Every structure is written in structure tokens, then in C-alpha cells.
């Protein structure tokens, strides 16, 4: 397990807005009066009840997300008091925010780098100061500009996809080994590759039109 200090201890208490009694700061519902609470200031992993890690089992993530939305989604509060409706919306919003980040490997890597690396990383870690990444990106872009058939685009897409898979495996190792600097560098590379995939899609649409 990675060491993250933004998770609130379960023993931290705050007064429930509804019955004013003590309620654990991370509780979704007041233990006494069952009223829905405001979302706790926890990280995305804690929000979904997961340990912080780059390796996320997507099926498990979906299950946790659905279970929580089943309890918190505004549809469950359609006949409730306005204050409870508003809180349910905030809870569901926080949940969607966390789900979107954790579901997507690039966003997850970026988030985890920032979560873990606040004290470790130098300022501007996400700026490219790595010549090889920059060169690779430029080469790819040149290739893309030359591609004028669907086949050529398919080839670039396959190549990019392979690279992405490689980077994801490397990221998993880097995070597991606590190599935050390495993970940061790989995340930057992943950003470029992801952008490339987007541009391939654009070129394909242009070619089809």
C-alpha cells in the first residue's frame, strides 16, 4: 500500500447538520438520524473505499461506484427535503469526480503522482525537460502529417497503442517500487501518447469526410 496522508481517520468526528449529534467525519449518513452528510474531504481512492494504488481493478471500481451511487444519487432523494437533495447532489458529484479520475489510467497516474509527490517532486514536474520524450512526440506528429490513407493511420494507431501499453506496465512497476520521479516522467510520456491517439482519431474523421 502506498503511503498517503490525505485520508481522514475514521475516529474524526463532526456534528451532523440535521440532529447536531456526533458523526464520523467520513460517514455518508449520520449514524443517529440517518440524514445524508456532506462529502468528506478525502482523496479519490478513499472516496470509493479503495487503497491508493496505480493498479485498479476496473470491474471492482465499477462495483464500488455503483454501490455508492445507489445510496447517494439524487434520484434516491426526489421526495426528500431540499437540504438533503442538495447534499446528495454534492455527494454524487464528488463520487463522479473520483470515478472519472480513477477509471482513466492517464488521469489516475497524474492524480497519484500529485497525491504522492507533493513533497518529493521539483516544481514543474509536468513540464517536459526530457529531450527524448519531446523528440518522440515530434517524430510521431511528422508521421501523422504524412499519413494520408486509413491503412497508414491504422499502423500509427497500432504503434501508439503498443507504446501506451508498455508505458502503463512501466508505470505500474514504478508506482509499486515507490519511484515517484520515474512515474512522473512516464506520466508525461503517457500524456503525449494519449494526445497522439486523439489526433489519429481526428485525422481519421477528416479522411472519412
Amino acid at each position, binding site marked *: 500500500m502506498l503511503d498517503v496522508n490525505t485520508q481522514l481517520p475514521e475516529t474524526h468526528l463532526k456534528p451532523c447538520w440535521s440532529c447536531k449529534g*456526533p458523526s464520523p467525519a467520513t460517514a455518508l449518513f449520520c449514524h443517529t438520524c440517518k440524514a445524508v452528510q456532506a462529502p468528506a474531504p478525502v482523496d479519490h481512492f478513499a472516496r470509493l473505499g479503495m487503497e491508493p494504488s496505480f493498479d485498479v481493478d476496473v470491474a471492482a471500481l465499477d462495483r464500488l461506484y455503483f454501490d455508492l451511487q445507489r445510496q447517494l444519487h439524487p*434520484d434516491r432523494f*426526489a421526495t426528500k427535503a431540499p437540504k438533503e437533495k442538495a447534499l446528495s447532489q454534492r455527494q454524487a458529484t464528488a463520487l463522479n469526480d473520483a470515478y472519472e479520475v480513477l477509471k482513466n489510467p492517464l488521469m489516475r497516474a497524474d492524480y497519484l503522482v500529485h497525491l504522492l509527490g507533493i513533497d518529493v517532486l521539483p516544481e514543474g514536474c509536468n513540464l517536459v525537460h526530457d529531450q527524448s520524450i519531446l523528440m518522440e512526440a515530434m517524430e510521431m506528429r511528422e508521421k501523422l502529417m504524412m499519413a494520408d490513407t486509413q491503412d497508414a493511420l491504422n499502423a500509427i494507431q497500432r504503434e501508439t497503442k503498443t507504446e501506451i501499453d508498455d508505458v502503463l506496465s512501466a508505470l505500474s512497476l514504478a508506482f509499486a517500487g515507490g519511484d515517484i520521479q520515474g512515474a512522473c516522467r512516464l506520466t508525461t510520456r503517457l500524456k503525449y501518447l494519449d494526445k497522439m491517439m486523439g489526433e489519429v482519431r481526428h485525422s481519421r474523421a477528416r479522411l472519412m469526410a
Partner: protein
Amino acid sequence: MAQLLQIHEPGESPIPHQDDAEMAVGIDLGTTNSVVAVSSEGQVEVLKDDDGQALVPSIVAYAPDGSAIVGELAKRLLLSRPDSVVSSIKRLMGRGAEDVKSLGGQMPFDIEPHHEGESQLVRLNIGGHALTPIEISADILRALKDRAEAHLGAKVEKAVITVPAYFDDAQRTATKDAARLAGLNVLRLVNEPTAAALAYGLDKSAEGLYAVFDLGGGTFDVSLLRMEKGVFQVLATGGDAALGGDDFDHAIANHFLEQRKAGLGETNLSAGEVKVALMTARMAKECLTTEDRGEWMLTAEDKQTKHALDRATFNDLIRADVKRTVKICHEVLTEAGFDPIDIKGVVLVGGSTRVPLVREAVSQYFGSEPLADIDPDQVVAVGAALQAEALTVGSDTLLLDVTPLSLGLETMGGLVEKVIPRNTPIPVAKAQEFTTFKDGQTAMAIHVVQGEREMVDQNRSLARFNLTGIPPMAAGAAHIRVTFQVDADGLLTVSAGEDTSGIEAKVEVKPSYGLSEEEMSTMLYDSMANAKGDMELRLLTEARVEAERAMLAVRAALQADCKLLSVREREAIGEQMDKLIDAIKGTDRDAINAAAEDLDKATRVFAEKRMDKGIRDALTGVAIDKLQSSVGDGENA
């Protein structure tokens, strides 16, 4: 940060009712036809008229006194009194005059000139009455409400109303405003393809990855959903809010009018005659769904012409539109990272999916025979009714939808800065920071837009407002945070504030294509003499619900911790609770609020005692936890 701008009012939230026996209905407010349905214990009934017709034509005729006739009768009047009849009004919801499609240079609507100070929302002249699409839609909703009330023998005030997934914010707001005018509280706006998926998922237990292809009279939607064990998760959605069967009618009518011009020379048709031409074209379209060819007569300017059309020519006329729907399907799938082969089934929704060329194109693209075993005209209302029951009675089904279009702000040079990209799960909130570009700048114009294009003027303008009262600072020093929030109905709220000063700045809102709150109140007043009473009733109901919530909370607290109180303290709280119970029985809203406030005061000391006890208990807990964890660590080492 203070909420400075609300494009939508929080007060629009439905009135919570104590009376749970009251039924909530599901309404499909369609371009061509509307349907109302009701669900009880999962059994859906689509409500029919005396002739057994479920579909209510979305056509309204206005009598000289302004009273409205809706449905089949209005449809019959369309041919004899076209000037006082209006159809396909959904196409103009949240739209401006420039959005109205002409036919052969002629408008099928008489458009009122725009007056200074009004919003850009189009106003029509129908039989001498100036009406907005919102008021006309309200008349259709009223007719559906009447049908439901007659059928159920009870008042109907709550509804789930469906909208095309691709409807933008202005169109959704217009729909909600129309419901408000009709005296309906919208429990939820549900996207039409999502409602259809709900009906299929629950009735036919469909599971896996499905596409819903919804081609209605005026709108096209395609949604990609994952369905499993009561979860309906929309992964991506796309469409065109101005593409539908109406366009097929336009294509045929244009074809007929071209033929007419070739025979009779230049013609100059009235809006009424254009409507008749469109009506004829529609009959031709419906006929060619089953027949190979046919002949139709067109009468205008006292001259009759005969027009023949066969299926092949009809297909040629609509081919470009049909191709466009397939292209949109492809874009939605690609963006979500899927191929047609990944899709387990395609559900057909909307009357226009009966057109043979449309079915052909869909099965060809997806490589499978599409599903249409629930009537494509009724499946959306069925889903809406199921969701209405789920919201009022409760259920385990979960509808997770997304934003159909990106939401953004205008930045320097007329460019759009996206704040919330399309296909983001809702509800969602995102903030963007901006700064001033001039020294001492105290105001900033904020322009909210919706759409995918890079330039502002290629997207839909939702609202403009000015953020004023920014303290004078050097250029770039102010931190202006603009927050976009989209609720579960897909409706946007925008708030803005300056961070460093925390100053509460004023905002002026001008909804570009909506009704101002003032216009809305006037309409409410005009349409219901008791509009003010309604507002009062809404506030009273809200006060009661809130008071009951507070009382339940105190009861729960007493049950948990009453031993913290002396007998006298307990009695004092009990006294205030009795007073509140009496106040709730009455109809004085201020008395209820005052009694609730008194109860809050009376329980303050109790709340403090409970917090103290909680913290004491927690500290004891921590001590034990620490002890346990150190023991645990020892074992692991």
C-alpha cells in the same frame, strides 16, 4: 464562495409531498406525438383516449378567445384552419427566430417581430395570438395532465418528463418551464434514449452493451449504455437536436413544390399553405413505409396539382439525412472506444425508425437486426413512467447519465474554453480560474456557451452576465473562479466569485433563449389565476417537510442519547416538539418556521452534550485502536 448566478432556480425543485399515495406520471413530450403513462408496482399502463389512442398528436389549435384544443381534433383542424394551428413546436423550444427552418423560402410559422428588451426566444403568431414555444408546449402538457387525472380519478401534479439526450441547456430549461406553466412539478428530466433503455432493461431483462437509436419527429439521439443488474450507465451520447422525420417531410414537400413550380411557375404560398404541403408530405412518407408508390394532391392558391412518388425516389430524397444518423452513431462509438461488433443490441425508438431506409442503414452499420419489440412510439413514455414510480415509491434501479454537449466560456479572441467536456457523468461540478487583463479592472463579462466548436459564435449561447465589484488590482492579480454545476436533470448553474478578496460580486443574468423570471411570473399569472396561491402552497409544503425532517432528527437523537438529559431538559424539548407538531397541522408557514427555530434553540445544549460524549467515546476508541494496531504490527513483524 457565494452563489452569484443561477441560470436555474433552486426553488424549481419539486414540491415534496407528504401524501405518497399521489401518483407521478411519465410523459414523453414529442415533436409529433406525446404520450402519458403511469406505473404501479412495475406494471406500466399507457393512458389512452376513448377511441383507444395512446398517441396525442403534439398539435395545438387556438380558438379566437385563446383557448387551446390539443391532439387529434387539432390535427383535423390543421387542414381547414392552418393559420390557427401549430405543430412540431418542440423544434423551437429554447430557440431563436433564426433557427426556424423555411420551406421554399416560406416559413411554416408566422414569427412575431422581436421587441427590444425581450430574450431571443422565438414568438409565434397563431390565429392572432403571440405565443412562445414554452406556452404552446404547456398547453400540450396540460392536455396530458387532464388525460391522466381523468384516468386516475385523482389530481396529478408530479411527472417525469423526457427530453432528447442531445437537448442543450436552453431546450431543457424551456421544457421545465413549460411543465411549470402546466402546473406539473418535474421530478426529473430523463433523456429519451435512457428512458427507452430502462423500459427494455426492466421488461426484457437486456444486459450488456446496448445502443439506443432514437429518431423522432424533430430530434435524433444515439446513446451507448451499459446495462446490468438494474444499473443503466450511459457511456456516451450524440445526436442532432434538429434532425428527424420532419426533415423527411420537408424533403418530400420541397420535391412536390419543385414539381409544382415546374408546372405552374413561381408560387407564393402562405404559412398555412406551407403547413398543408408538409401535412401532405407526411402522409406520403407514412404511406411509403409500407407501399412502393403513391399519388397525392396538393391544393394551394386555388390550384390543384397531382404528385407521384415511389419508394426509390423517397429514399434518394432522405439519403443524406439517414447517412448523417449513421455517421453520428460511428462518432459516438469511436469516442467511447468501441466498434459496432461490441454492441450486443440496438434498440429502435421514435416513429421515424419505421422508415425502411432507416432500418436498413441501422442494421447494416451495427451488423445485427435492431430491436423494436416495444412500440417505438410508446417505449420512452413507458421508461418515464417506471422512473416516476422509482423516484416516488423507491427502487434499486440506477440511471447514470452524461452531459451531451461540452460547456464552456468565451475567452479572448472569441475562443471557447471548455469547462465541462461532453460525455461527463452527471451530476458534475468543475471550476475554472480566470484573471483580469487590465490594471484596476473591476468587472468582467462572462459568456456561457454550449457546443463542440472552437469559436464562440459556432456554439449555442446560453447566458451572458457581468461579474462586477472586483476590487481594483494589478492586471493578472485577481483570481476569478467560475464554477459550472450540472445537476441530474442536465441543467446548468453557473456561479462566479473573486477568491483573494472573497468579495460578493453582483451578477446580471440574461438567458439568451429563455424566459426571464419576470416573464415567467406574468405567464403563470395569466395562465392560472391562483398562481400566487400555488407559490404559497409550494413554500408551505417545503416548510412542513423541513420541519418534519428536523423533528425526526431530534427524535433519533433522543432515542440514542436521552440519558444525557435531565427530566426537566427532556420535558422542555418535548414541549417544543408538541408546539411544532401543532404548527405543522396549521397553514401558517411563518409559524412553522418559528416553531422549528425554537426547537433548534431548545436542543442546542443537548447537541453540545452529544458532541462532548462523542469525542470522549472516540478518544477511548483511539486509545484502544492504537493499542490493537501496535499489537498487530508486532505480530506482522
